[in-house]
């Protein structure tokens, strides 16, 4: 067992700790290496799991926390991708905006609840992709909590659990997406 597997174990433990924080809403059903599945049906969607995107560095590693969700929807006629982008001036107010050629993005942009959450939580990435083959939406969320950072020089490991508001808002966001898609 080398140094990276030791650090990886630490990171997987942190992934579990962050995911367990959501037990007020749902429960963990399966734990694999770098993938922790939740009972998504409890929150009204098809699947939901957490994982880390690992960035290797020489003197350290950065593990970026990600959520993956799948929401069933057979109504959309074609494949499409909607991305969340932020606009705004440097050091000014940030304005979240969903961008896509398709009109669903406009609908999301007009949704006050979604906009409020996107302003409150710093998302590094939020992407919604519709797959006609799977009849549903794959959602990838990179919130700015749960990241695990490890550096050798100076020796530091760091990770931040989400707070109660962030936990609630994450679940609320996913459920709101479901409502918008199926309405």
């Amino acid at each position, binding site marked *: 067992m080398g140094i990276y597997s030791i650090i990886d174990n630490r990171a997987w433990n942190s992934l579990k700790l962050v995911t367990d924080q959501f037990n007020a809403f749902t429960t963990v059903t399966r734990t694999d290496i770098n993938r922790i599945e939740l009972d998504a049906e409890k929150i009204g969607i098809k699947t939901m799991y957490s994982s880390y995107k690992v960035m290797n560095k020489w*003197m350290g590693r950065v593990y970026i926390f990600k959520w993956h969700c799948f929401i069933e929807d057979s109504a959309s006629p074609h494949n499409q991708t909607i991305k969340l982008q932020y606009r*705004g001036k440097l050091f000014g107010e940030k304005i979240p905006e969903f961008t896509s050629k398709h009109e669903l993005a406009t609908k999301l942009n007009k949704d006050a609840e979604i906009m409020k959450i996107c302003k409150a939580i710093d998302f590094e990435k939020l992407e919604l992709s519709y797959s006609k083959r799977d009849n549903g939406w794959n959602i990838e969320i990179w919130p700015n909590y749960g990241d695990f950072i490890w550096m050798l020089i100076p020796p530091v490991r760091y990770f931040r659990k989400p707070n109660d508001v962030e936990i609630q808002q994450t679940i609320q966001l996913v459920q709101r997406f479901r409502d918008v898609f199926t309405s």
Partner: protein
Amino acid sequence: MGDLKLNRTLGFWAAYSASVGLVVSGTAMVVLGNGYGIGGPAFSIIALISLFIILSVALSYSEMAAMIPGAGMVGEYTLPALGKLPAIFAVLAGYIVLVGTDGGTNMIVGGQSFETLTGVPWYIAVIVILIFLSAINLLGVSVFGKVQSVLAISMMALLGIVGLLGLLGIGTQEQLATAPPFSPITWKEQMGTLGIAIWLYIGMEFVAPLAEEIKNPGRNIPLAMLFGCFTIWLVDLLFGLGVTKYIALDELAASTIPHVDGAAAMLGNTGLVLMGIVSIIAAITTCDTYLAAVPRMLYGLAKEGLLPKAFAYLHPKTRTPWVGIFTVIGLTMIVLVYAFANNANIDFVTTMISVACSTWLMSYIITQVDVLILRKKYPNAHRPFKTPLYPLPQIVGIVACVYMIYTLYVDFTVLKISAIVIAILIALSIAYLKGTGQKLFQPVPLEKVFEGIQKRSELDEAYTSESTNSK
């Protein structure tokens, strides 16, 4: 992987690999080559003494990391022992100064290697690399994955192989007509290099935070560190003794990239190219690590209210923590601008390494004092690892660190830069604590520290339940 809890699953070899896995950097190579250049083959003895000193320090780190397994490391150990001001100072002195000085100095070493290989002035290479790294980190693009293990292993292996080839005289250039003296300087002067020799083992205390996962930590941690450092010492010894047969000590002592020059003297152009390329990549990736990791950490700490809110700022479009990234760039630039003004000679590089060493050693002293205070204050607290022969390693460690700081401060420039850096750190810490209405020296109860760790990091329930009754 059914159970993700931190179990004691790691044996001796895992602890060993954590200890030596990456104890190598461009600046460590400079210290190695420069140390042998100044002290001759006798530098091996100084390196061995500093090995035992860092071992004493690492035992304290192991005890603290096992007792208070918080992500805040030395900052978290110091809160219940000495209070908030020493805690912030220990973190800033130990980590932030290190990032600033090591980041910039590594870039210079990489730039000088580039200049030797291509003839392009070092500062142009450094500026181009820094702009490139800053841009990719500001834009949130990830590169350089998967290079780290190859680099670390190749650097250590190259050193060992080059040293061995040199000692055996296989495939090498002509040896020097006369062998260098064993110790070209007095032993008193040799002892003066002790402070900087500790840099050879930088990062080896990383095994300490793994104390909870290591089987029989009382045996395996000290053994892994001892054996790990001994291996590093052995590789360094091979390189040092090998290289001094081929290159004049004066030349080695005066070089900004002695490891590259030494390899070139021994293996000709092959040695130059091999060691040069490794040094350049090492410099780039070290700086990239700092730019990727430190700003994220600062972002998280700011979100928790432990740092000014500005660090939690994300650029609206790129979603990267620009304030943190510019802070790291700024820290690196201070060293680079100073180097440019002072022609980045070996005196400058060793001065910056010495400044980092001195503040890093202060952070070590604080950790050892933490062990002494917490043993007295919380004698029954849950300690998965206890320092053997307590308090001897702590006393030896503190005395040695004080002595090493003294040897570094004999150089007035090091003293002057350190004093400025320390004054700035203390002033900023006091301003922040006073501004947020916090007491400077009032220790935080251990239970409160555990509560904090539990809220934002990882901690077993066992700690809090045991600690409450431990006082």
